[in-house]
């Protein structure tokens, strides 16, 4: 196959390109230049592009850089800022996968006559006997990234190769060392790639002015104040600056009124998650019990889908609005949506 490998300059995508080449694919590498703004420390810094370029040179494959900064700004950064302003959890990696990697970059690849794109995600694309594409969790459960790929459908999965999904992280590093790739020992990127470490509040303040407001209890009694709803998240219990004698959790964020409601742990619990923008790998599930995952590496819950709601078997803390709710049948992704 003619494959366009998206190479971030990290070890996973480096090894993905190398593996596909060794499997006989005709591989071309590309690094996406996404953000030239305030930070040069993220996923598309000059140093990372250079790492990707050097790995491509070592593999003797062509390498290009695509500047998708306009699209990244509109599809990832602006929604990120808007989500915080509206007290919703932003999902920059999800939006980047949706709009950039498996959106613009995939379209660009197809335009250039490639058969597929490849990435270094820890997840497995498999084609079942009926010809239906499935997305399974990565072999390394601690590194599984299927959650941030919940939006992939048949069109994308049919044109995506995720060779790293079959490997554990230590196996990936071992292969990189064996091949002598310069990225073998590179540390993982952890933070939001377009914001320098520890700079989130300032980044947001520069784009959406913070609105301070009250912290109240369920009855509306004012217990304190906050610097802006974007500084807090539902379920948070630290850093509220409110001394009530008992542990209190953020149970609601009201962005239009700039009001934060706190309560006891019991006030957080629910068996019902309303979801929007539902998307399925193939088709909506029946009423069978599914694995429900509400955070990238959160503990899996059990529940089933009823129209636009996930009904949990046992109460669990409320999911912050905007958070991805992914549904699995076993280790196979069914689909997901965003918590309301």
């Amino acid at each position, binding site marked *: 196959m003619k494959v366009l490998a998206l190479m971030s300059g990290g070890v996973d995508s480096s090894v993905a390109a190398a593996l596909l080449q060794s499997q006989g694919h005709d591989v071309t590498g590309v690094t996406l230049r996404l953000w030239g703004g305030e930070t040069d420390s993220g996923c598309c810094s000059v140093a990372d592009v250079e790492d990707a370029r050097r790995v491509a040179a070592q593999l003797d494959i062509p390498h290009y850089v*695509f500047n998708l900064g306009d699209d990244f700004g509109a599809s990832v950064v602006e929604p990120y800022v808007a989500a915080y302003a509206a007290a919703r959890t932003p999902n920059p990696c999800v939006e980047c996968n949706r709009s950039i990697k498996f959106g613009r970059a995939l379209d660009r690849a197809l335009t250039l006559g490639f058969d597929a794109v490849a990435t270094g995600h820890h997840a497995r694309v498999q084609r079942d006997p009926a010809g239906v594409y499935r997305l399974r969790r990565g072999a390394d459960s601690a590194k599984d990234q299927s959650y941030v790929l919940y939006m992939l459908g048949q069109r994308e999965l049919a044109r995506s190769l995720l060779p790293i999904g079959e490997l554990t992280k230590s196996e990936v590093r071992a292969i990189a060392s064996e091949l002598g790739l310069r990225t073998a020992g590179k540390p993982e990127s952890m933070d939001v790639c377009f914001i320098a470490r520890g700079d989130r509040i300032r980044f947001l303040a520069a784009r959406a002015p913070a609105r301070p407001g009250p912290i109240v209890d369920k009855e509306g009694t004012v217990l304190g104040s906050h610097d802006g709803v974007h500084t807090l998240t539902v379920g948070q219990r630290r850093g509220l600056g409110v001394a009530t004698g008992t542990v209190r959790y953020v149970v609601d964020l009201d962005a239009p009124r700039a009001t934060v409601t706190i309560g006891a742990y019991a006030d957080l619990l629910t068996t019902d998650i309303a979801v929007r923008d539902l998307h399925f790998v193939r088709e909506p599930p029946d009423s069978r019990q599914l694995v429900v995952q509400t955070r990238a590496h959160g503990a899996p819950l059990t529940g089933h889908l009823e129209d636009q709601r996930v009904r949990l078997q046992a109460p669990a803390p409320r999911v912050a609005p905007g958070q991805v709710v992914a549904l699995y049948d076993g280790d196979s992704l069914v689909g997901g949506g965003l918590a309301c």
Partner: protein
Amino acid sequence: MRPESIAAMEPFLAGCFANPSGIHGAARAAKTALEVARELVAAALGAQPGEVVFTAGGTEADNLAVEGAARAARAAGRGDGVVTTAFEHKGVLAAADRLAVDGFTVQRVGIGGDGIVDLDALGRALDAKTVVVSVMLVNNEVGTIQPLDEIGALVRDRAPHAVLHTDAVQAVPWLDVAETASAADLVAISAHKFGGPKGSGALVARNGVPLIPLLEGGGQERGLRAGTVNVAGVVALAAALQATVDTRAADGIRVGAMRDRLVAGLVDAVPDTFVNGDPHRKIAGNCHLGFRGVEAEALLVALDQADVYAAAGSSCSSGATEPSHVLAAMGLPRDAALASVRISLGFASSDADVDRALDVLPATVAQLRARMGALA
């Protein structure tokens, strides 16, 4: 590189490795070669040998001209106005930006849709406090030749205390810079644009224009550019310049005809194609076209895979293509700018190259358009 240039520099890489500032025999040989090169460059650019400063390329020459002249003028109390254009090379724009940070009054004059500086706007920007005016002789993307004589007259008339700098980096392969840039006090060139090595350039500083150096140290280059002189790079620059001057008139006619055939062929074969920059006022080697609905970045990759090399915008340090500030300055809408590519021709271009481009480009554009249509 031109063979003459490679041959000229080889002895100074392999054999004569001396520092021209030394006093022994080998040093004298290096010094002689350096000064012969200086005389050659001066003659080709219409200057005296003592007016040539060798630099590490065009960007340094631009920086030295714009910043050096502006700071010297302000120190002498002549004013603090700097006027340049919106589509200069970054070597000029960044220098102007730094001057603005340091309190200079910097104005960037607009560009017409034809790629020629707006002379009315330029005239309005000039006054008695203007100390530096910087307008490129040939634009590096669309290839348009700026009317430097008219600009020089305007500057003498409206800004009597100003010096005129021109970035002539793109002009040397095609124009007699001694003549076309005669109105300029400062002229920057770069060797790799005319068959010389990268990292070697020169600035002509005529008429006793005072400059404050960027680099200070051992006082080389009349104190204007400290640091051991890159003798191999300088002699290679001079040799490439001499070879360019020798064949320039003939090259211009030959390459211009090839370029005209290329542009006409592409406009004819590819629907929805537009030309950027006034075709009658550009250098012979410039072909700058847009193909509506095609992403230049994708087209460049497709062409590279077919061994046709084109460019778009300007390249940043990561290797990504940045949206062109030149096309934006000319008022081209962003989607048209992102659909535009530059196919440069040079003295080494052949009819076979043009044939190949005419063979590959229309098919490639059609294929990209068809595949993009299929996605939608």
